[in-house]
């Protein structure tokens, strides 16, 4: 690796609240990978679904305020763990870059205009593309023999392809390969990109219960004993609402739902407490209880190299 990589890091509101464990685990993993993260000063909410379901001008302005702050930091790449933030930031940038009239309209709502120089990437994308599987395998100290993971990407992390420009929109593999590179057993999972119910958890719980149940069911069907996610809403729906799903549909799911960064962190030797794994509603204690030290990470690094070819 040449020099230390550094990115503007937009954590987003969820990662300040219910998804604090995602934030903690991403920061630790990035540290292990030698990546510097700098928080844009006084960032604000991206607007997420409620803003774009209201008006595109409002949505773009709420997102672009943050992009302008990143420009002010002298940075041209922003990394965010949250797919909803990612989508809002990329859409605002894309529409402003493509349409000068719209750009002027949006900038008319901002104190500091956005010049359209910032590329937003997901934390998953940075780890997969910028750092690469060989580097990802290097810090591994711990074997996670008990885990059989269904990698769940969610609906908007790599879709639509023209916007996301990352991985495959129907059968993404980046998370699969990252988890394999840290030595974890990954299953073939058909529901990688099916929607879990997204932001409807509060106003339309019955919809979320039905959609979430399908994802949980397919993960079990694939032989997984846990799920890895890259989205705070996916995590909330699959984990926090798993009890609601069981109560509403008469099912008895009991499957832990990790952030992918928590699994990476375990493999890198961080404790469950540091990674917020003790905050999972469906306990993962039994699964991670079987972990132990690995011989220097050469085996995992080899696996990573092979998969990358």
């Amino acid at each position: 690796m040449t020099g230390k990589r550094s990115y503007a890091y937009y954590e987003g509101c969820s990662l300040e609240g219910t998804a604090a464990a995602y934030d903690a685990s991403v920061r630790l993993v990035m540290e292990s990978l030698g990546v510097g993260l700098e928080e844009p000063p006084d960032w604000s909410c991206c607007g997420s679904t409620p803003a774009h379901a209201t008006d595109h001008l409002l949505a773009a302005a709420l997102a672009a305020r943050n992009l302008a702050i990143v420009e002010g930091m002298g940075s041209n790449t922003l990394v965010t763990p949250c797919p909803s933030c990612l989508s809002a930031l990329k859409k605002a940038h894309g529409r402003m870059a493509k349409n000068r009239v719209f750009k002027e309209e949006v900038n008319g709502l901002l104190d500091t205009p956005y010049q359209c120089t910032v590329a937003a990437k997901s934390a998953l994308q940075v780890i997969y593309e910028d750092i690469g599987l060989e580097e990802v395998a290097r810090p591994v100290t711990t074997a996670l023999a008990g885990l059989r993971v269904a990698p769940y990407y969610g609906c908007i992390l790599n879709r639509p392809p023209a916007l996301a420009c990352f991985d495959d929109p129907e059968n993404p593999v980046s998370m699969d390969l990252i988890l394999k590179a840290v030595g974890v057993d990954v299953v073939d999972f058909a529901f990688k990109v099916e929607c879990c119910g997204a932001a409807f958890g509060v106003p339309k719980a019955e919809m979320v219960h039905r959609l979430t149940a399908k994802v949980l069911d397919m993960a079990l069907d694939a032989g997984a004993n846990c799920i890895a996610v890259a989205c705070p809403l996916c995590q909330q729906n699959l984990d926090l609402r798993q009890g609601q799903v069981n109560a509403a549909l008469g099912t008895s799911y009991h499957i832990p739902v990790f952030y992918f960064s928590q699994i990476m962190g375990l493999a890198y030797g961080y404790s469950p407490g540091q990674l917020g794994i003790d905050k999972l509603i469906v306990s993962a204690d039994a699964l991670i209880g079987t972990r132990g030290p690995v011989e220097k990470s050469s085996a995992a690094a080899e696996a990573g190299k092979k998969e990358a070819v």
Partner: protein
Amino acid sequence: MGAINPAVNREGDFMAEVGKESGENPLLCYQCGNCTAGCPYTEFFDYPVHRIMRLIQVGQRETVLTSKAIWLCASCETCTTRCPCEIDVAHIMDTLRAMSLREGKCAEKDVRTFYDAFLASLQRHGRIYELGILMRYNLLSRHVFADADLGPKVMAKGLIRFLPTNIKGRDEVAGIFRKYAEKRK
């Protein structure tokens, strides 16, 4: 779902209106149904998404803007990803929500109440405050006990914050809302 006769009841040039506001061309849709085949929400919709596209083409303004479907769409982008005509269908659904909202035609009040609670929190603090949004939603939607069952779980795990983050630039954020409202007047 009422009977629709495309030969009559055309309400202005709705397709051109949607085309202009979305920047997409709804006429490119040839009704292959790929969007509906992949839509995870179609079982909950009153009109499946390919039919929304057809209703736009035949100028059924009122039917579309008062549909539940446009508000039950989660913007999961499956339709946009799979459209063989490369129509950004999810963006059209978004555009229809904006039109429906402006004209006071939203047929899914709870969804809108949740979005409004979210935006109110953002406008006030600069960032959203999850507990505040839930409490405001429960009050305004009169679903007072929505997600009350989750309370003990999130508290036991220390997942919920009891105070919002107020950013320094919250006046600037409130200014975005104010200037936007003036512009849309």
